[in-house]
């Protein structure tokens, strides 16, 4: 147990702190918006790449900084930007860029990675379908090879940012007769072509952060495949892992709890601060203990990765625990505020710009999305604890 950082990493951190102090004013304000990056955002990203605080491990020839991978440096970068409340840079689209780097052709890498890293090329993900949620491998959007083009027909859902996207990475069924996991291919193509219709999908928060995307005889180039035909499920799996990995991040939970404490110190009932009201106080303490457990659990995972070990159970539980915990933190904020807690949108008297209600709903969405809590429990039971899968059942029974 040694919570100190090596001298090299301490220097790295203090250089970054110095950088942030000097340049934070040139960072764009607020969260990055979905869609095209603003010029300001692009300049910021360029500066960060130049200094190695964005696209750090992407090779120079593809537009990155080209450093050797160092998990602790990544961790320090994430921590310091979060602590300084400065918008961090990115390494392109974290779902598709790693796939291209690992499995893309040299041509794909050269054409696609640099503009993505620069924020010039926006991607959307075509995985889920209305009939294929938890059971993603049952997807039915099909692509048929005609000459040097794939012809795609079907419907995708949850394609966030599709209305702004230049490119799509998409799972389609190309081998209808193969077993379901072996009949899928991973295609990439531009979104500006006939036969693609994007319809916004409004969620319970009232915003349209997702879309439904319809493909009707949509023709895309044959060489837009990553990996071989029928290997798409395995190509995609790496990125799915990556996406799931970010759900339930304990740093975010810690920062939410900090905001909740502030709220409960400032708001009052009949003059008494909420944090002094025992029933709310007790709930807050329960949540703090759980948050701390997940925070240190995160340090354990980080340590395992640093040692090149599989973190195992500590890693499997992050999404299940983290999303539920975030949801409960929002729930307490709302209850403690009482009627003020149900205010929404641009209502007078709304607190923290309505983030608590929005997060209460979004967190519920995250409990469901990226593998429902039920699927997570199956995975923990089967993969981490070694319990048997459900037996195969008789078709049509």
């Amino acid at each position, binding site marked *: 147990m040694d919570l100190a950082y090596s001298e090299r990493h301490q220097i790295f951190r203090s250089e970054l702190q110095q950088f942030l102090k000097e340049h934070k004013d040139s960072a764009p304000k607020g969260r990055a918006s979905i869609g095209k990056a603003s010029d300001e955002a692009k300049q910021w990203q360029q500066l960060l790449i130049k200094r190695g605080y964005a696209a750090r491990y992407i090779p120079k020839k593809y537009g990155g900084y080209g450093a050797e991978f160092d998990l602790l440096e990544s961790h320090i970068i994430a921590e310091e930007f979060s602590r300084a409340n400065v918008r961090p840079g990115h390494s392109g689209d974290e779902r598709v860029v790693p796939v291209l780097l690992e499995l893309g052709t040299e041509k794909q890498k050269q054409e696609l990675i640099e503009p993505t890293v620069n924020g010039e090329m926006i991607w959307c993900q075509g995985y889920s379908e209305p009939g294929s949620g938890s059971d993603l491998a049952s997807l039915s959007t099909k692509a048929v090879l005609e000459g040097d083009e794939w012809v795609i027909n079907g419907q995708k859902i949850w394609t966030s940012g599709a209305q702004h996207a230049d490119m799509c990475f998409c799972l389609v069924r190309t081998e209808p007769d193969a077993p379901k996991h072996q009949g899928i291919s991973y295609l990439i193509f531009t979104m500006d072509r006939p036969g693609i219709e994007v319809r916004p999908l409004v969620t319970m928060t009232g915003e349209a952060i997702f879309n439904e995307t319809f493909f009707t005889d949509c023709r895309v180039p044959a060489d837009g495949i990553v990996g071989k035909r029928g290997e798409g499920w395995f190509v995609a799996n790496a990125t799915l892992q990556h996406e799931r990995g970010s759900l339930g991040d304990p740093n975010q939970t810690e920062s939410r709890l900090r905001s909740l404490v502030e709220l409960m110190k400032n708001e009052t009932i009949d003059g008494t601060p909420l944090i002094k009201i025992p029933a709310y106080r007790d709930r807050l303490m329960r949540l703090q203990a759980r948050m701390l457990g997940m925070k240190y659990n995160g340090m354990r995972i980080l340590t395992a990765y640093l040692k090149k070990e599989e973190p195992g159970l500590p890693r499997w539980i992050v999404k299940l625990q983290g999303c539920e915990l975030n949801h409960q933190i929002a729930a307490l904020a709302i209850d403690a505020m009482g009627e003020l807690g149900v205010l929404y949108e641009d209502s007078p008297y709304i607190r923290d710009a309505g983030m608590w209600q929005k997060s209460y709903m979004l967190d519920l969405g995250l409990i469901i999305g990226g593998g*429902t*809590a039920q699927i997570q429990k199956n995975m923990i039971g089967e993969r981490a604890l070694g319990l048997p899968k459900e037996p195969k059942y008789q*078709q049509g029974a």
Partner: protein
Amino acid sequence: MEFALSEEQVMLQDSVSGYLKSSCSLDVVREGVAGGITKQADVWQGICDLGILGIIIPGELGGVDMGFLDAALIAEALGRAIAPIPFIGSAIMAPVALLSGGSEEQKENWLPKIASGDTVFGVGVTEQIARRETDGIVYSDGTLSGKAMFVVDGIDADMLIIADDSGALHIVDANSSGVTRRALKTIDKTRAVAEIVFDAAEADTLPRSKNDKEPLLKTIDAGRIMIAADTLGAAQVMVEQAVAYAKERKQFDRVIGSFQAVKHMCAEMASDLEPCRSLIWYTAHTVNDMPEETRALACHAKAHLSEVGRDIAKTATEVHGGMGFTDLLGLHYWFKRVGLNRQLLGSPELVREEAALAQGW
């Protein structure tokens, strides 16, 4: 011994539900929400025609003189339909305030107008439960000054009943000079709550509320029971929709309701909600028949339905998977109705404390 709805009560609820089913579909609700309307004209007219706005108002004052259990059945039906009309403030809390605190003249003047739907009342008692955003409301020389928050049905109201800092209740014309209203936008767009600022607004005091908190407390109790019934109706719909979806939606080549995880989520929701129905029936029944039991029970009904309702709103959404998170099925309207009900007239922790106090603990 019969702990059950009478035939008449079943008929009453069926007729209200039947009317709402045909005239207050989800499309109608969506339309109202889109237009920012919380007193949907057609639905309101139908409710007036059914005569249920006078449900607890004596016959000689234009009402139908039925009991609180009947009123709770209507509130439940309105919750089921997430009906965008004022009811709990205007048709229940205001009449209770007038009947228990008002003079004969006040009753004769206002109750027939409430029963007919000609006058809508908003009711402001939040400050007497938990004061958060106001410096109080002071009555002096026939006028009221101060700020009332979260006035129930306050935006659609013609008239207001407002509790001052002493707990006395006053009638104020919502459109008179010295009254400024502002809508408070909540997650639930099917009903409106208002912030109302009084600046020496003319006020007509309910005389029997002057040195007696009973009229105020009865008004709050009545509101809480009806909110609980509204949540019962809304939560019941969510359970039904989750069960129906679980029977229909397939994943892994099976309907998801055949998976134990989903089946048990449905079973838990149904099992948690069912006793709530009995709790509300009994609580509403006490108002007329065993009023000494009402206070603690009204708190319990409000707080417990808030807890069960919230769990069901969450679980039913989960059963729907991603679809539950979208606007497509409209499930979130019920989710949000339950969410507003949870906080109105006291959030659960505060109301449970009152339940303990009501029992002398």
